């Protein structure tokens, strides 16, 4: 008997070292898994930050122009619309580099300045009519290639014929830089312009406004509808009812339907059947509403179940009707949780792209939308559109747009967390 026990002990002891090793190994597997996930997150955020942070600055170039009053007066919008400001800027460039001759060379020189420079100059003259007759120095947008060079994104070691920026241009840029005629400034254009074919003129305003309008529509529809559905299912619905079961299964299933299918629904119903205009924030918002509704309903139901039954019983006990109980007592207590759920749903909707592609929000739009029925894009769609462009300048803009999007998502999630911390009661 004693011998047997000793033997068992021997077996256990002999295996102990191996089992302990296994234990440590197992722990390390978990640590490595977490490390890999975190490494990916770091790589993702770092690669986007590294590419995008430079887009918040933009190269401006100083041009000297003489504002000839004979040509420019009177400085009214109608008259200035006919003036050849592009010629003025080109003349200024030629005067800065008198050695440049030949059509090809000149064209290369003109490309240092963005094609929007003429409009900038016109607007400046409109605002400063008192400067007529003087020679002034005005800072205008530089071309995207110059901008990229200034930010160190042009690889000079590449053979000249494979570069967009030629050796001559680089020489001029260096010369301008030494004269202090090139400057990196905060990139207002990025926040105030719509889309453009030229990277240096492209901005996110259209996409931002489009996203904002869509979020307004989505919030205005999905929040009340989601809360109403959740209240019915939690507080009023009869248990063990076929229809109620159907509704629950449908909600759970809809939460897992791929978002692109909602896009197909939006295309067939909102555009095809109701004939709403394409590419508008209204249709985008409606489609996203259908998509976020299950999320909002599920979160709102969780918030309602978290309210203890004693609250309801107390209200019913003093003679409130069931509707009064819910709307006067349960709902206010569940509201923080519901708001949190709605914000998280909104954050998901804000980052969603695929359904918007289906309803034609992938358009090239320059003018910001003025209302729900004007064509617009959305931030994630703008990212998708720019990501397709091969120019280096657009890679930078794409990353910058991603940074803006991530900042907004982060703020929304932060708001949700704060709301939960501040307002939620623990029972």
């Amino acid at each position, binding site marked *: 008997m004693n011998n047997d026990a000793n033997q068992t002990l021997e077996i256990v002891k002999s295996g102990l070292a191996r089992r302990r090793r296994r234990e440590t190994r197992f722990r390390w597997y978990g640590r490595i*898994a977490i490390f890999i996930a975190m490494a990916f997150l770091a790589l993702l955020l770092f690669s986007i930050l590294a590419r995008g942070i430079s887009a918040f600055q933009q190269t401006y170039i100083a041009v000297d122009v003489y504002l000839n009053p004979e040509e420019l007066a009177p400085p009214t919008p109608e008259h200035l619309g006919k003036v050849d400001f592009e010629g003025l800027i080109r003349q200024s460039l030629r005067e800065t580099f008198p050695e440049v001759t030949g059509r090809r060379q000149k064209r290369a020189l003109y490309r240092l300045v963005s094609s929007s420079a003429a409009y900038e100059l016109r607007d400046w003259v409109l605002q400063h009519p008192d400067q007529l007759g003087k020679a002034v120095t005005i800072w205008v947008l530089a071309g995207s290639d110059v901008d990229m060079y200034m930010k160190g994104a042009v690889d000079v070691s590449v053979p000249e014929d494979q570069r967009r920026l030629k050796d001559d241009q680089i020489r001029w840029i260096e010369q301008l830089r030494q004269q202090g005629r090139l400057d990196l400034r905060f990139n207002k254009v990025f926040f105030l312009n719509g889309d453009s074919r030229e990277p240096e003129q492209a901005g996110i305003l259209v996409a931002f406004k489009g996203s904002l309008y869509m979020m307004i529509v989505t919030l205005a529809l999905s929040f009340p509808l989601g809360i109403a559905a959740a209240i019915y299912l939690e507080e009023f619905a009869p248990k063990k009812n076929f229809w109620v079961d159907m509704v629950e299964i*449908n909600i759970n299933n809809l939460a897992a339907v791929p978002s692109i299918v909602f896009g197909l629904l939006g295309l067939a119903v909102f555009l095809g059947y109701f004939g709403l205009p394409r590419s508008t924030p209204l249709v985008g918002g409606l489609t996203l509403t259908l998509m976020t*509704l299950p999320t909002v309903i599920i979160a709102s139901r969780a918030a309602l179940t978290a309210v203890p039954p004693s609250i309801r019983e107390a209200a019913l006990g003093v003679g409130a009707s069931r509707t009064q109980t819910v709307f006067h007592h349960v709902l206010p207590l569940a509201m923080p949780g519901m708001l949190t759920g709605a914000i998280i749903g909104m954050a998901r909707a804000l980052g969603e792209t695929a359904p918007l592609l289906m309803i034609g929000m992938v358009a090239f739009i320059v003018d910001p939308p003025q209302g729900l029925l004007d064509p617009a894009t959305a931030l994630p769609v703008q990212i998708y559109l720019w990501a397709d462009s091969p120019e280096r300048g657009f890679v930078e803009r794409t990353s910058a747009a991603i940074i803006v999007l991530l900042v907004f998502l982060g703020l929304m999630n932060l708001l949700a967390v704060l709301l939960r911390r501040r307002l939620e009661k623990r029972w």
Partner: protein
Amino acid sequence: MQPDTLIWILLALSALAFYLGRNRAIQASSGHIRNLHSLPTYYGYFVALWCGLPALVILCLWLLFDDKLILQMVISQLPESWRNLPEDQLSLIINQIHNLVAGETGRQEVDPALQRAADHYRQLKAIGYQALTVLVLVIATASLTYGYRHVSPQMRARNSVEKVVRFTLILSSTLAIFVTIGIVLSVLFEAVRFFSKIPVTEFLFGLKWSPQMAIRADQVGASGAFGFIPLLTGTLLISAIAMAVATPIGLLAAIYLSEYAKSRTRSIVKPLLEVLAGVPTVVYGFFAALVVAPLLRDFGIELGLKVSAESALAAGLVMGVMIIPFVSSLTDDALTAVPRSLREGAYGLGATQAETITGVVLPAALPGIVSGLLLAVSRAIGETMIVVMAAGMTAKLTLNPLESVTTITVQIVALLVGDQEFDSPKTLAAFALGLTLFLITLALNLVALHVVRKFREQYE
């Protein structure tokens, strides 16, 4: 009057009705509210609802149908030769009329008949709005008076109002059913039209996918093949790679976090994992196309392998990263649902913590984990932006992860983005793909639900 101003007027009228109703109730109570059946505000709501609801319903119905009706009337006034045109050309003319009405004339000369039709349309629309204004205002005042005269101390105002509230709640909750029906019908309807042009068997079992249809009959090399198999293998290949990344990392991370990690580590790592889940998929797509794919290609060159610039591996890898938090949070839920007593029983028998986890906790949590993994697969199959940006466009029947493959979702996007006519097999094919996608994910979701319901142990 424009419909939106009409809605504001209606709201203002309802607010007025609220005060009228409440005051009448207070007056009728002869100074003591307890003489009333309900609180005075309920009488206010009662009258306001009477004033607003019927008029609003009429307004909505009108707005839904007036365009179609007016269009019919305009078409019936068009010249004979136009009315007999085939449907697609007629819809072109209707579009031109719409453009004229919206004031987008363009540069070319406008056909006088078209201009007449546009004027007619505008005129009918104006008449319609006038009629609508009168109708809505009359209905609103009439029903307001009706509700107002009904206010009396005996009337059960609260019950009526609560009935309306209850009905609204029920209506909102059935919206989920309508959305599902809407998805099924809209996708099914177009898919059936597609299958009337392309046989179902060819779609389901065809080995070739090239949706370029010949625009002219004599065009070469564009016959159009709608075989679904290469898309399915591509989708499954990318999803398999994604799951191969996400399953071990997600599972192990969840096990470590819920069983080993101190609460401080947990409170740092879990939110970070949630950040990974909160990053929009378009960002992952950009990351895959711009960072991971070139990295893999360079790595492949080092090893002497030829890696495509749009390899399935890059898309699958990044998709796997996207799914990690999904897997880990569902696994975490399943693990925490296993009661302590099971773990303590295992410790009592002398098992190490790792043995407890692999021998006791994991088997007990298995149904939850399996259902979570199935949901993750369904998510990977339906994921769009990563594959649109990082996977290829051409359908290849291959299982080599280094080559470029295409997926169902990529093809849906490719077929529907850009200008297209609504009737060609190309666009209809997108809906057929959407239908299969919906059915695949639906099946996976239902199986996942079933696994949990059927095999989960109830510990109480």
